[in-house]
């Protein structure tokens, strides 16, 4: 087994591994694909390599510099993918499989597809403030994350989320879809 011995590569890989671990930990819960993190890390690797020529500088670079570089690299990565018309991939939180970017089997589409569409319709009919919060909840976001992104207090988030879910249940019931226990 061999490891890179030159200080530039070692310093760069140390910084990048630390960065990639943190991004993966945050993104894993919401279906961020491993390939996205890999592509981003490669983009950041090249930028840091060009900007910081020796290992000492790379190790001494403040975290804020690394994350500013990463934020700008992520934007560029998305722009390039859109220009190439690449379809983003999201990993299912339920099965752990990639659910976008490739067509599900016909059987999988048939099974529960109608229910999914009806839920989509019901969510779409909710009032604005409740609709967004319910969509976030259904997409897997927790109350704290919802409050953080919307700039709301925990109490306001809880209130609107519960009201929104109650509205959703009411609409689904009126569509003939029975109540369900949320997981």
């Amino acid at each position, binding site marked *: *087994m*061999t*490891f890179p011995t*030159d200080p530039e*590569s070692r310093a760069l*890989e140390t910084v990048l*591994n630390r*960065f990639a671990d*943190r*991004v*993966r*930990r*945050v*993104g894993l819960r*919401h*279906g*961020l*694909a*491993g*390939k996205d*993190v*890999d592509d*981003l890390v*490669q983009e950041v*690797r*090249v930028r840091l390599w*060009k900007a910081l020529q020796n290992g000492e500088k790379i190790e001494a670079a403040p*975290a804020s510099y690394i*994350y500013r570089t990463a934020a700008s690299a*992520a*934007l560029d*990565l*998305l722009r390039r993918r*859109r220009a190439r018309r690449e*379809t*983003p991939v*999201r990993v*299912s*939180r*339920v099965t752990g*499989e*990639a*659910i*976008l970017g490739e067509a599900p089997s016909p059987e999988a589409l048939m099974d*529960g*597809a109608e229910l*999914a*569409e009806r*839920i*989509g319709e019901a969510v*779409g009919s909710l009032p*604005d403030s409740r609709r967004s919060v319910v*969509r*976030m909840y*259904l*997409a897997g976001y927790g109350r704290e994350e919802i409050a953080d*992104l*919307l700039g709301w207090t925990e109490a306001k988030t809880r209130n609107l989320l519960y009201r929104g879910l109650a509205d959703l249940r009411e609409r689904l019931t009126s569509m003939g879809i029975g109540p*369900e226990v*949320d997981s």
Partner: protein
Amino acid sequence: MRESYDRLLAIRGSGEADRTSCLTPEAMQELLQPEISEEERLRRVDHIMGCPYCLPEFELLRSVAKAKPPRPFPWATALAAALTLLLGAGLVWRLSSPRDESVLRGDGAPIAMETPAPDAKVVPPASFVWHPVANVLQYRIEVLTPSGDLVWQHAGTDTTATMPSDTPLQSGADYRWAIVAEFANGEHIRSTLQRFKVAAP
């Protein structure tokens, strides 16, 4: 219900992508700042959370923003110094103990690269050898120029690869190579970047 919503997004994403009403990456990134009005914030969130294409893009941007470590408190710096001392002592003990290859595999380098050795001088055409990774679908090798540009890449199932002899390499220049192991579920792991020098043919 969340499972059904996942399915809904999968259905919406299975056809041809129509992104005419999608947010720009910049508009998504602005959501991570506090300056946007609540009305605008709700409008953007509503689109992203119902869009199979914007949602994974937003998650990438959000994960980068959220991964930034918080500023340490002063007491945390002192605690970190104490922990560093402890870790240093542990490291000295660990390095003085005998170790085997299986322990090294988990040490931040999931793919073992065999040849060329770090900083080795290579006479073109360069050949690369690495150790197999369990359950891999295929390997991708990347060779980067001194300025970080990709000069050659190759995908295959072998754990060896040889650069075509007409690949433009500068004698005496440094290059880096890396291996990406790709799995059937779409996940990847990447080796460290390793340097080699090109010798005169």
